[in-house]
C-alpha cells in the first residue's frame, strides 16, 4: 500500500480496487447497530483545511470518527493557519502534536505533495484537494458510486472496464476532473471530456481522453455516466465564456438534453451544484442522479483510505501475525 494519497496517478489498478473493496466493507457497517469501528483507536487524524469546504471536512471528520480516531480540525477561519503561518510551521506543529495522518485541503496546487515530501513531518498525508491539481478521494468516491450503480452487490474486485464517462465543464481549473481522468483510466473506463476550448488545459491532447468541444457531441457517444463539474461564474470576468446563459445553453445538462441520455446513464456532480447553470433541476433530481449516493459513499471511501493508510505499521512485520 502507498504511504500517502496525493494523486490518483499513484494508484495502480490493484491498489485502486483494494480501496474500493475496503470501502464496500466500510459501507456495510453503516447499517449496523453500532456504527463505530475500532481500528484507529489511539491514532490522531488532523484535518488541516486552508480552504473552506464544509462538506469535505465533515465527510473526513465523520470517517475518522467512525474508525475511532481522535480528530483535530484546523481550519483557515479563526485559527493559526490564517495568520500567515507557513505550511512548514503548521506541519511541524502538527508533528509535535503526534499526528498520525493529515488530511489537507489547500488553495495551492502541490501543497499536499510538499507536506508529504519536504521532510517536515512523518505522518500519512491525504490530499483533500490542492488548488487546481487533484482531489483523489472525490475521484475514488465517484468511481465507487459508478461501480455500485453498475454492479450492485457484485462490485467487489471489479474495475470500470468499458464504462464511457463524459466529464463536462471547467476541466482547466478542476482538481476533480484531473483525479477522475487518471483513476477512471486506470480502472478501465473510457474517459471523454467536454468543454469550450478556453476551459481545456493546454496539452490535453496528451491526456488519455477523447476531447469534445460540444456537449451534444459527447452525449451522442452514449456515455454510461455524465459528470457535470461546478462552473464558477467568476470565470466570466476572465473571458473564459461570455455569460452564464450561454454556458448553460451550450454546456449545461438541460432538461432537454436529459431526454437524450440512455436509460441507465448516471448523472453525477461533485457538489455543490449551480442549478440552472451547469445542471438543471430536472437532471439533478432525476432517478439517474447519483448526487446523494456520492455524498454517502464519500464517508465510506474516506474510511477506507484512512484505514489503509493509518491503521497498520509501515514496517513489514511477519506476514501471518495472528494465530496458527
Amino acid at each position, binding site marked *: *500500500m502507498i504511504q500517502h494519497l496525493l494523486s490518483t496517478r499513484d494508484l495502480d489498478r490493484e491498489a485502486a480496487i*483494494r480501496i474500493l*473493496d*475496503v470501502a*464496500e*466493507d466500510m459501507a*456495510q*457497517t453503516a447499517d*449496523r*447497530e*453500532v456504527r*463505530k*469501528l*475500532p*481500528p484507529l483507536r*489511539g*491514532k490522531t487524524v488532523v484535518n488541516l483545511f486552508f480552504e473552506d469546504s464544509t462538506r469535505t471536512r465533515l465527510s473526513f471528520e465523520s470517517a475518522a470518527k467512525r474508525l475511532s480516531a481522535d480528530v483535530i480540525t484546523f481550519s483557515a477561519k479563526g485559527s493559526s493557519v490564517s495568520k500567515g503561518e507557513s505550511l512548514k510551521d503548521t506541519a511541524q506543529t502538527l508533528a509535535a502534536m503526534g499526528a498520525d495522518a493529515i488530511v489537507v485541503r489547500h488553495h495551492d496546487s502541490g501543497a499536499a505533495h510538499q507536506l508529504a515530501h519536504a521532510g517536515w513531518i512523518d505522518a500519512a498525508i491525504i490530499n483533500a484537494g490542492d488548488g487546481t491539481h487533484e482531489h483523489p478521494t472525490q475521484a475514488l468516491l465517484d468511481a465507487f458510486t459508478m461501480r455500485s450503480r453498475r454492479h450492485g452487490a457484485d462490485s*467487489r474486485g471489479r474495475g470500470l472496464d468499458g464504462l464511457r464517462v463524459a466529464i463536462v465543464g471547467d476541466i482547466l481549473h478542476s482538481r476533480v476532473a484531473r483525479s477522475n481522468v487518471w483513476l477512471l483510466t486506470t480502472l478501465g473506463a473510457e474517459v471523454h471530456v467536454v468543454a469550450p476550448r478556453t476551459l481545456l488545459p493546454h496539452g490535453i491532447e496528451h491526456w488519455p481522453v477523447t476531447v469534445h468541444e460540444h456537449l451534444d457531441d459527447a452525449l451522442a457517444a452514449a456515455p454510461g455516466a455524465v459528470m457535470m463539474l461546478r462552473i464558477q461564474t467568476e470565470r466570466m470576468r476572465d473571458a473564459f465564456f461570455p455569460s452564464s446563459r450561454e454556458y448553460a445553453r451550450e454546456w449545461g445538462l438541460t432538461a432537454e438534453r436529459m431526454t437524450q441520455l440512455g436509460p441507465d446513464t448516471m448523472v453525477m456532480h461533485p457538489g455543490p451544484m449551480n442549478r440552472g447553470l451547469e445542471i438543471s433541476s430536472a437532471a439533478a433530481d432525476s432517478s439517474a442522479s447519483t448526487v446523494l449516493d456520492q455524498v454517502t459513499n464519500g464517508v465510506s471511501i474516506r474510511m477506507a483510505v484512512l*484505514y*489503509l*493508510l493509518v*491503521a*497498520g*505499521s*509501515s*514496517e*513489514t*512485520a*511477519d506476514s501471518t*501475525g*495472528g*494465530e*496458527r
Partner: protein
Amino acid sequence: MVARTVLHDADITRALRRIAHEVLESRRGDGRLVFLGIPTRGATLALRIQQIVDEIEPGVSSAGSLDITLYRDDLARTPTRTPAPTRIPAGGIDDAIVVLVDDVLYSGRTIRAALDALVDHGRPRVVRLAVLVDRGHRELPIRADFVGKNLPSSTSERVSVRLTEVDGNDEVTIE
C-alpha cells in the same frame, strides 16, 4: 521439517458431524442457531457445519461470516490488512444462539476480537465457540465449547488447515 498430516479428509468430515450433533444437543428450547465463521477458513467451516445441522433439523439454523480484521489487537504492529466481508444472515443475531467458528484455536486473540466485533452487530442470547483444531498455548481466558481435535503442539510448530473450497483438498498438517 516435514509436514505430518494429523487429520485426513474423512477425519475432518467426521469431526464436523460430531460438532454439529453436539451443537444441536446443547441447544436448549427453540433457540435460533447462527453459525458465524471467521474468514477465511472459519467461514467455510461454519457453512459446512450449518449444512449438516440443517439436514438433521431443517430450518433452525443459518450461517454467515464475521470479519475481525478491524478489531485485531495487533493492527498497529503489522502492515495493513484488507478486511474480508462480514455476512450476518437475515434476521440478525439478536437473541440468537451464535456459534463462532474458526479453524484453529491458539492464543485466543482472534476470538477476543470476534467477541468485540459481535457486540457491534447486536446482542445474542448466548455465544459459543467451535473450532476444528485446538492447539493450546492460550494467552487469554478463552476456551472452545466444541472441538474437532485437540492437538498438543509446540509453539515452534506450524498447524495448517486446508479446505477443499479454499485450498483444493481437506487436510490438517503440522510441521
